[in-house]
């Protein structure tokens, strides 16, 4: 893994020479230190579906890559899919209605270039919401998904203030007929769960699925820790950005073409 993190950003673009260098490094490693096998680098880490009674593992880090060039400003299939999947209904008060994913429009005043992109919980490695939570309700699962344990959430909303991405909502009214897989209730904070109930079932988040079937195919979901996953390959090949990377939170959601 150290190989991966030590790559300076400038060399992240695809470089066949580097690939072959890595290949020979593996061989050299085995030759130089008998008994130490660098299988982790050389061989594909099999991402197998967990069984139902197996805990989420920290060998995985779930993430998303959003290709902004493929995201249409008129399209909000991801938002609709999220609302449907998680039973989010508006009360006609956009200021306070729950919103787990939203579309934003960016315009560079200098060039006039416009972008449209979805923003949701960035599933930060060093999540400020987790830091400030007084009850431990905001937490990060071993596989990198940042969640609210609503059983321990007291609704203080510190996390809402702490989140630089405005990703969290507060449930202001009593709810009825929630989805069985997405319990929600008055007085607690909530945000994108990356559709953790789907991930645990070996499926894709609802927004990603909808983007690929009905939208522009801009969203890719996968394991950032697995060098052979499609998302890791793309992140290793193309220039991608994290929003507010300067904060050093290492979000699990990345963008291309911002």
């Amino acid at each position: 893994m150290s190989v991966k993190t030590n790559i300076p950003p400038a060399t992240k673009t695809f470089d066949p020479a580097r690939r072959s260098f890595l290949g020979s490094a593996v061989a050299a490693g085995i030759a130089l230190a008998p008994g130490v096998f660098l299988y982790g680098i050389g061989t594909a880490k099999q991402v197998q579906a967990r069984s139902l009674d197996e805990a989420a593992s920290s060998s995985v880090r779930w993430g998303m890559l959003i290709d902004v060039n493929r995201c249409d400003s008129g399209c909000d299939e991801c938002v609709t899919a999220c609302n449907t999947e998680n039973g989010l209904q508006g009360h006609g008060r956009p200021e306070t209605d729950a919103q787990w994913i939203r579309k934003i429009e960016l315009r560079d005043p200098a060039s006039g270039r416009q972008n449209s992109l979805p923003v949701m919980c960035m599933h930060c490695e060093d999540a400020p919401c987790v830091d400030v939570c007084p009850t431990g309700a905001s937490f990060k699962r071993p596989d990198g998904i940042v969640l609210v344990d609503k059983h321990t959430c007291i609704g203080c909303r510190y996390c809402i203030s702490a989140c630089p991405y405005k990703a969290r909502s507060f449930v202001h009214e009593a709810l009825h007929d929630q989805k069985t897989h997405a319990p929600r209730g008055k007085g607690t904070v909530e945000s994108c769960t990356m559709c953790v109930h789907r991930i645990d079932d070996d499926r894709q988040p609802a927004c990603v699925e909808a983007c690929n079937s009905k939208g522009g195919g801009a969203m890719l979901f996968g394991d950032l820790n697995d060098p052979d996953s499609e998302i890791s390959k793309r992140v290793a090949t193309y220039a991608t950005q994290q929003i507010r990377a300067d904060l050093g939170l290492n979000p699990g959601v990345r963008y291309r073409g911002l």
Partner: protein
Amino acid sequence: MSVSRYAFAASAVVLAGLAGLTAATGDVPYPDIPKGQGEACVADTEFMRRNHMSLLMHQRDETMRKGIRSKQHSLKECIDCHAVPGSDSIAITIEDPKHFCRLCHDYAAVKIDCFDCHASRPERKVVAEARTK
């Protein structure tokens, strides 16, 4: 009045700490709890009456914190098996005093908030026929 009902009433009385009331007199109204679907519960019925809350709390943390989604003690599964059809064969919600989780709690003066968030009936709302295993 079946023998098992006597046994239930007695344990509920103990659980709720309603000392002084004896179901054996037959004067005490006690809930007529709808039977779950299928042959048996996920554990011995007697054990479930006393310990279902511990199983649920444990499962809650396992699922929430670790992503363990074994079915046996999942609240979703309790709700599925213990769905009670209303007059229109649509499963009733916790609003209805005859809901499996409510009948007994009302009787024993237990208050839970689980259904502020959790759906109190299965996603498939029609529960006319018995759940097949």
